[in-house]
């Protein structure tokens, strides 16, 4: 095979993975913006979304557009409950306590859902709601799955953009992430905005879960751990707290991961992502798009 078309083909595959990472990374970056917390449970919400979609498609045969809506709702509720039950009582606690709680929530979701009575710890085949078709574009082929992932990701990002930069909720969210105390003084309900941020982030992770299930049709209760951490790295790479930074970071991480698997060895892909993390934290801790250096 011609090397150029091979690289292009892998690039398309990387964009497919990167689009999913971007959707998850948005949740991390928004929650970090308003709460200064790495929400470790976010990767598990992504997993939860994939499982909800699996049950809706496989057990109830619900049409795909309804699957998206119901999954987003379910994930939004899960995100809301996690924030209310686990994180809200710790609003004034030391930062590390909040971080440990996040780890605890993540472990709880994984092991609770892996009980045999619930989702079981086994790998489950995710039913594709449509057949995969490839379109040959001379240099590379693109599948309808990839086209759907790109379109849905693009639409989600566009809606998120409208929400954050064109509505009052978005303005309030940006204000809270800028300065919580001052935002409160200006009459913004901090708790409401934090809950709202979790809801938006969790529903995006839900979309990511469905797309991941369609693209890589094998789901497992522990599937959220590595994509979750990689998406967080993507958010750091793009500049944490910056919406479009998360998208750029996600795409870069996705492409890097696929290229490492294609040209080196798939066993090294996790390692390379963490080397990227170290490089970012050492040389440009504010990320690609970040300007202020205050996180380190």
């Amino acid at each position: 095979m011609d090397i150029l078309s091979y690289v292009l083909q892998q690039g398309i595959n990387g964009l497919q993975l990167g689009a999913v990472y971007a959707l998850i990374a948005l949740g991390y970056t928004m929650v970090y913006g308003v709460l200064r917390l790495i929400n470790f449970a976010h990767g598990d919400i992504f997993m939860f979304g994939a499982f909800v979609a699996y049950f809706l498609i496989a057990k109830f045969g619900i049409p795909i557009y309804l699957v998206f809506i119901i999954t987003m709702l379910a994930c939004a509720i899960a995100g809301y409950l996690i924030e209310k039950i686990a994180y809200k009582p710790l609003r004034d606690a030391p930062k590390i306590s909040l971080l440990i709680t996040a780890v605890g929530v993540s472990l709880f979701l994984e092991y609770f859902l892996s009980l045999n009575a619930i989702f079981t710890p086994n790998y489950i085949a995710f039913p594709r709601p449509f057949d995969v078709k490839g379109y040959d574009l001379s240099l590379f082929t693109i599948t309808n799955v990839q086209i759907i992932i790109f379109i849905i990701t693009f639409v989600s990002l566009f809606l998120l953009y409208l929400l954050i930069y064109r509505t009052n909720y978005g303005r309030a969210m940006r204000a809270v992430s800028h300065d919580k105390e001052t935002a409160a003084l200006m009459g913004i309900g901090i708790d409401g905005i934090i809950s709202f941020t979790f809801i938006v982030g969790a529903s995006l992770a839900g979309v990511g879960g469905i797309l991941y299930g369609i693209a890589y049709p094998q789901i497992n209760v522990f599937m959220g751990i590595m994509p979750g951490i990689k998406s967080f790295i993507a958010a750091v790479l793009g500049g944490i707290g910056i919406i479009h930074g998360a998208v750029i970071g996600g795409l870069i991480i996705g492409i890097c991961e696929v290229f490492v698997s294609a040209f080196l060895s798939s066993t090294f892909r996790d390692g390379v992502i963490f080397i990227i993390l170290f490089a970012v934290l050492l040389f440009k801790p504010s990320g690609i798009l970040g300007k202020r250096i205050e996180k380190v």
Partner: protein
Amino acid sequence: MRFFSESRIFLVVSVSLYLVMKALFAFDIISPYIQQICLYAVIVALTAIGLNVIYGYTGQFSLGHAAFYGIGAYASAYLTKILAIEGVLPFIPVLVFCGVVSGIMGYLIGIPILRLRDDFLAIATLGFGTLVRVFLDNSDKFAESLGGSRGFVGIPRITNLELVFFFLVFVVIITRNLIHSRYGLFWRCIKDDELAATSVGINTTHMKLMAFTYGCILAGIGGALYANLYSFLHPSNFDILRSIDFLIIVIIGGMGSIMGTIYASIIWVGFIEGLRIVLPAQVLDLRWVVIPLLLIALMIWRPYGLMTKRRR
């Protein structure tokens, strides 16, 4: 004077505890399986004290402690197998060497990442843990005997009661003296307020690095003892979940309490291993559902650890 009387009591207690354990072991009152668990609990305590110095005393949140434990374990497994060490006495220099290897790794990795704070340090140490895991999974590509993802087999079984007990007592005394030295004071200053610590002239980078390296040395020694206790190693024994184990022990025992860490290690190992004997397999799955819930509840009600009183 108080220090001498305290350490005398500590020595008396540990010697009598040792004699009791020795009697239990020698007369086969407890089965070899439970003996192994007892030794394992001591090893866990040793390693958790290392994390307590890093996190409990100096306040540097590490999610990669199991990586240093794993480095020590693999180093010891490799050395004892290559050198065909069987006795306890030739094993001691290997143990110390493995601690030093872990410590050097901790020092090298600490130079860049200890500049980071709280959550970024957490994600960086987690990243290092994953890197080590990836390396161990592929280790058979570098040296066939490391076994890679198939696991390291055929490690000589050397670790015994005297060895782990001696090292625990030794480490507790050294750690205690370190904590009560000026370095320990600096560490606690850094934990309470890093900015204020810098402003009174403490070289915070240097002190954090020192605490981190010391903690990693303990993890390396713990790992080496572990490798030569179970004579089988697998990369999955040193993943994120194991790091969280140590973190939970430090939190339960109280951040900044050596004895608390020891109690918590014994309770923890007893809980995890003991339930394996008592409960049927179906109920056993519930362990990891209940533990995170307890952790969350603990963080909400006692954010400074179970056995420490609320400060500030």
